[in-house]
């Protein structure tokens, strides 16, 4: 494993909950790792199980769904 390996995580964030939460985390200057690649969804219920599998197929190290 590379010394400076940084995981690449696909994130599905609900527009009304976690996305706003992420925004607040930014505004409040909470530190968190820059590992997420965010896709904003209108609801985390909108996230199809197939999207999660697709993320792994495309080489993401993990998938994070939050809402």
């Amino acid at each position: 494993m590379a010394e400076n390996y940084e995981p690449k995580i696909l994130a599905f964030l609900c527009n009304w909950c976690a996305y706003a939460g992420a925004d607040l985390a930014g505004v409040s200057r909470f530190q968190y790792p820059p590992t997420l690649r965010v896709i904003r969804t209108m609801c985390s219920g909108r996230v199809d199980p197939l999207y999660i599998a697709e993320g792994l197929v495309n080489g993401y190290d993990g998938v994070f769904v939050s809402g």
Partner: protein
Amino acid sequence: MVAKLLDLAGIERERVQLRRVSAAEGALFSEYVTEVSQKTLEMGPFDPTQYMLELGAVQRALGTRRLRWLSGMEHQLDKAENVYREKTDPDLMEEVLSEAIRSEYHKALILEMLGEGPLSVREMAERSGMPVYTVSTRLNELERDGLAEFNCHEGSTAKFASLAA
């Protein structure tokens, strides 16, 4: 459901995480991201090329009518009762669900392998790591559903082909 399929595929289920965060919980969000990143870091990079067959089967299984219909239903099935006011037994429901997932995954794995050309039961068992008996049983189900068929003989070994798109 995805977690169970990943277990079957031999991929760490911790790679997929679900968390509830409200718009007012910025601190909680950063906490979760730190936690999930740490977990993924510990598991190391994920190489999809090592799991092409399994991931193909996971996707195929998730696309089946049976699993589409069952996904996200756990909540309703847990709470609801039938017209006789009988509640579902959560353990039994869990068992039924797991069996559905297992069966769809096995069948999807077989169809994925047959996508590359006709194979014998023994070849499929070797490639997938499934026991010969499991391959044979699932293949039978696929034949019954018109998704696979006997293709040809190679010596005295029967080979099967996929009829699925």
